[in-house]
């Protein structure tokens, strides 16, 4: 015999989901209760996961002596609390800047290879590498001229008119064309929510009605 959770879980899901969807009709109390519960649950989870991470990766190695140097990031992180005291709030800038420095450093160390040189290389060599037949040559030319036109569209030091303006407009059409699949993807992504919502309703109903 199935336990009560088998029946409760689908219906609980449908009830909460419907409470959120009820906003479509109008803003209401059930919607607000559901959203507040969601924010509260998410925040509670965030606090617990972060505390657990802080304890296991920051404090525990100091306590058991396996990595005493962890005292440095721990002290830096404690400085964040200074934000609550106006006299010492400047201290909170140190951990913020430390994190910014690490993130920027990690990113910059390989951004030139990945996002600058790599992309220029694959754009400029596309003619020699990909142009096997007439279709390949057209494809390669479209990519090169599309990239150049799109890049020129974002240059502001020269007025975009005449032949130059036509070329930047050509680049803009490429930008708009690239937005097409992105928006179609967004639609598909959000349709997943509707599909799962309806599937959940049907699954919950099927527990009692043979549909």
């Amino acid at each position, binding site marked *: 015999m199935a336990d009560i959770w088998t029946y409760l879980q689908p219906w609980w899901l449908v009830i909460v989901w419907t409470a959120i969807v009820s906003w*479509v*009709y*109008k803003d209401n109390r059930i919607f607000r209760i559901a959203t507040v519960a969601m924010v509260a649950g*998410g925040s509670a*989870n*965030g606090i617990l*996961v*972060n505390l*657990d*991470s802080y304890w*296991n*990766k920051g404090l*525990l*190695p100091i306590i058991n002596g396996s990595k005493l140097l962890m005292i440095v990031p721990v002290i830096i992180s404690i400085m964040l609390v200074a934000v609550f005291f106006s006299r010492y709030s400047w201290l909170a800038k140190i951990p913020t800047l430390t994190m910014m420095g*690490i*993130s920027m450093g*990690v*990113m910059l*160390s*390989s*951004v030139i*290879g*990945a*996002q600058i040189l*790599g*992309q220029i290389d*694959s754009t400029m060599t596309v003619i020699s590498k990909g142009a096997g037949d007439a279709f390949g040559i057209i494809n390669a030319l479209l990519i090169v001229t599309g990239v150049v036109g799109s890049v020129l569209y974002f240059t502001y030091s020269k007025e975009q008119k005449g032949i130059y303006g036509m070329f930047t407009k050509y680049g803009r059409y490429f930008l708009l064309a*690239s937005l097409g*699949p*992105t*928006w179609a*993807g*967004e*639609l*598909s*992504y959000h*349709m*997943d*929510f*509707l*599909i*799962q919502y*309806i*599937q959940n309703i*049907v699954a919950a109903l099927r527990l009692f009605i043979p*549909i």
Partner: protein
Amino acid sequence: MLNPWEVKGKTFLEKLGGLHWFWIGIILCVMVLIPTLRPLGLPISTTQWTVDAYNAIKNAPNDKVIIWEDQWNLGATAAAEAAHTAVMRILFANNKPFIMYGEALDTPQLQQYITAKVLKTAEAQGKVYGVDWIQLGFIAGGEAAIVSVAEDIRDAFKTDYFGTPLDQLPLMAKIKNYKDVGLVITSFGSTTWIESSVRQWYIKYNLPIVSYTMTGGATVSVAYYPNKGVVGIIEGGRGGAELEFLGKVFGIAQSQTDAKTLSFIAVAVMIIVGNISYFGTRGKKNNG
């Protein structure tokens, strides 16, 4: 308050474009409901990048470990669940050991939620936690966390998600750092996370990446495919359905594709109708 009966415009073409969105929502719901009640079995085509992703997973070196980083959270579950389930089942079916961790706060619970379902499938029978797969839990730091994991995984994680010390898990004997990794699967809800993965996993450590993006993110991933780091792309629910088909691990994605196909046809018709209304009334509005 919602008033579906409100129709804007005076002429037929204006009224066509002024139809309340409520009715469009109803049409979409019906299009989803029909195949949910009675699956239609519409055909599924596969894209080259999903085939490449499948082959990359299937042909990952047996003497190395697959690293699976998840960067999606609760809000993306509807889009991510199908492909996540399919990837996990394919990994089990092909005996590819993998280690997964989460870079969003609630990802470990979602990994756990999906793992519980996957463990009931045929592919997972006989698989042992700690030998065939490991779940490491959450790691903070975003892109910096990748470097931390790649340089020394034991330094990044002391225990797994359940608190077991890593040295007690047999699979951990096969891995110390990036040199023991054969493939990276990176799944994410943000469109641009793949840039971080390429910067670190590919540019720094020369490791191939399977980009498992929610739908919409493929347009960024494709800039690195097929020879700039990304060896295959799994695109959200659609990618999940393709993987289920390729790996013969049929599941929820297959049941969603009928609904998607029907609803997208409806959306395409609505876009055409909207454009007819727009262009049909534009001249009049400009003159008026």
